[in-house]
């Protein structure tokens, strides 16, 4: 890739989506990995969500040119990715699999990846140290990778993805198996990369993880795009469908009698064991708004109100199962 190409890529970052999937399908024999997926991922941090087997890894492997689309086209930074190894100078991938050259130390591993990216000796040395500092692995860098904890391995994988200073980063389940401290650290790193102008695509099957990194999400299931956009937009989508709200109240039978006559209540289930009710409603905001009045007027003490739908997890479950 010549410097002119680099300039074109730099310009394209500002005006075009970073990643474009155009009617892309990928199947492995009879198994569909990605199904007619059209997608535009903008610059910034984007969360790629879906349950196991949704096609997240296939999508990332297509985006990094490891797989050839059975149908359609994949473009990153305005360039087709398949057999375009020069584009890899601008792309970093933190793969999902927990694989390393186990006999290397952390420093050797990252340094080797830097050299494989074409960095000259001294630059590779500097970049390795710089990146290991960035992911908080400097103090463990001389230990063999074989002896690393899961969190340390994830940090080291992230370091190899960052070491050549790519413009676009694809992180495949980077938080999997990490302890809370490592998780928080990795989230901070990803957020910071986004704030520094990198484009980051983070895949995960745990919604709250991604939710706390970025509001921009893409939901995948069975290789299809389920929803994309800002968390709020996805919430709007879900608001068109029934919400489930749980009310815990000692006098739950009397509360049920009050609720059943209301127009905004679509359904009601008694949770006798928890002394509560599960209300199904199309108008969650209005319902929440009426609760204080209901409690005051009828003298009912509602001890707890919660809704799984308040968490993105519920949105996700709903959307992928519809």
């Amino acid at each position, binding site marked *: 890739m010549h410097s002119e190409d680099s300039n074109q890529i730099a310009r394209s970052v500002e005006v075009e989506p970073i990643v474009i999937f155009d009617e892309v399908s990928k199947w492995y024999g009879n198994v569909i990995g990605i199904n007619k997926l059209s997608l535009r991922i903008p610059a910034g941090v984007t969360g790629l969500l879906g349950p196991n087997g949704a096609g997240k890894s296939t999508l990332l492997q297509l985006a990094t040119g*490891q797989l050839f689309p059975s149908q359609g086209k994949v473009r990153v930074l305005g360039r087709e990715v398949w057999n375009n190894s020069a584009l890899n100078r601008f792309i970093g991938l933190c793969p999902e699999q927990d694989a390393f050259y186990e006999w290397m130390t952390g420093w050797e591993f990252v340094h080797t990846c830097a050299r494989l990216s074409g960095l000259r000796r001294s630059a590779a040395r500097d970049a390795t140290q710089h990146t290991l500092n960035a992911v908080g692995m400097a103090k463990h860098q001389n230990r063999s990778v074989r002896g690393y904890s899961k969190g340390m391995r994830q940090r080291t994988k992230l370091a190899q993805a960052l070491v050549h200073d790519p413009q676009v980063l694809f992180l495949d389940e980077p938080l999997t198996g990490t302890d809370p401290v490592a998780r928080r650290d990795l989230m901070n790193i990803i957020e910071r990369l986004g704030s520094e102008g990198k484009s980051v695509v983070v895949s995960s099957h745990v919604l709250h993880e991604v939710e706390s990194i970025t509001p921009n999400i893409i939901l995948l299931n069975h290789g299809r795009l389920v929803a994309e956009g800002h968390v709020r937009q996805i919430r709007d989508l879900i608001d068109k469908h029934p919400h489930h709200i749980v009310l815990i109240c000692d006098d739950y039978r009397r509360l049920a009698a009050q609720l059943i006559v209301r127009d905004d209540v679509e359904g009601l289930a008694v949770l006798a064991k928890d002394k509560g009710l599960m209300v199904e409603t199309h108008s969650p905001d209005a319902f929440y708004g009426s609760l204080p009045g209901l409690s005051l007027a009828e003298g009912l003490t509602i001890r707890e109100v919660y809704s799984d739908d308040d968490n993105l997890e519920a949105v996700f479950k709903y959307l992928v199962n519809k």
Partner: protein
Amino acid sequence: MSSATSASEVGHPVNRSLRAGRFSLTALTTLFLLTLRQYMHGKRWIVMGILFLMPAGLAILIRATRSNIPSEALEFLIVYLLIPQALLPLVALVYSSGMLQDEQEEQTITYLLIRPMAKWAIYLVKLLATLTTTVVLTAVLTTLTYVAIYLGRDNQGQSVLLRCVQSISIHALAVISYCCFFGLISVLTKRVLIVGIIYTVVIEGVLANLPFGIRLATVIYYTRIIAYRTLDFVIPTPHGKENIAADAWQFNIKSDPSLLDHPQLCTAVTILLVSSLVFAALAAILCSRKEFYVKTPEKN
């Protein structure tokens, strides 16, 4: 990680190092050295070590039990029957089958595929590292065997040294051909070990020993032609001096006048080298179009 700094802060060192260009010699050299280092790790190295000591051990054993056997006969038996027929294909198969498949199995191939290196270049560099490793091992193996055969014998040191160098060259040529061929097979099928063993036993082991045209398609045939046309295998026997290679390899000109039609030295060398190049080029082309599936935890 409060003290941690980000990769992009303070002017990342990469910014001044990444050069434009489709191929990076740095990357390819690193891959070459990485592959050599990979070959130095693991159990394969131990297995190869034991395997490589076997001919020398066998020579010592035979010398200890049958002291009257001529050194030349022992040399022919081990250096020109055992090694090229069994050990070289096996060594080539073990190393070339793992070139990419080991990386795929261990899921480390991703780290290569996401670098600015074309897949065909990755294949060729790994093949070059494999050839380097196997040729060095072959040289060591052959030298050790010659030492075990001739050490302490009343021979002219210089002529033995010359024969040893010639044998190393012939074996190196053979192992290069085998590596390129098995490398191609490894790109075509995951079952390269099974295919390779069947090929070695049936084609190189059995059919190559029959005086039919099929032997023209074997590495061992050209290896023998080169050895036969460059080295002297005449040894004293109870019936007088005999060329032991002529009978063993069916190259006896008295009973096989068509030997004159067999390839000359230069032709045999050219065939092995050109076929190796063709195999390597074919494999590289196939590799450039190949998808390397990696078992992700999700797929598992």
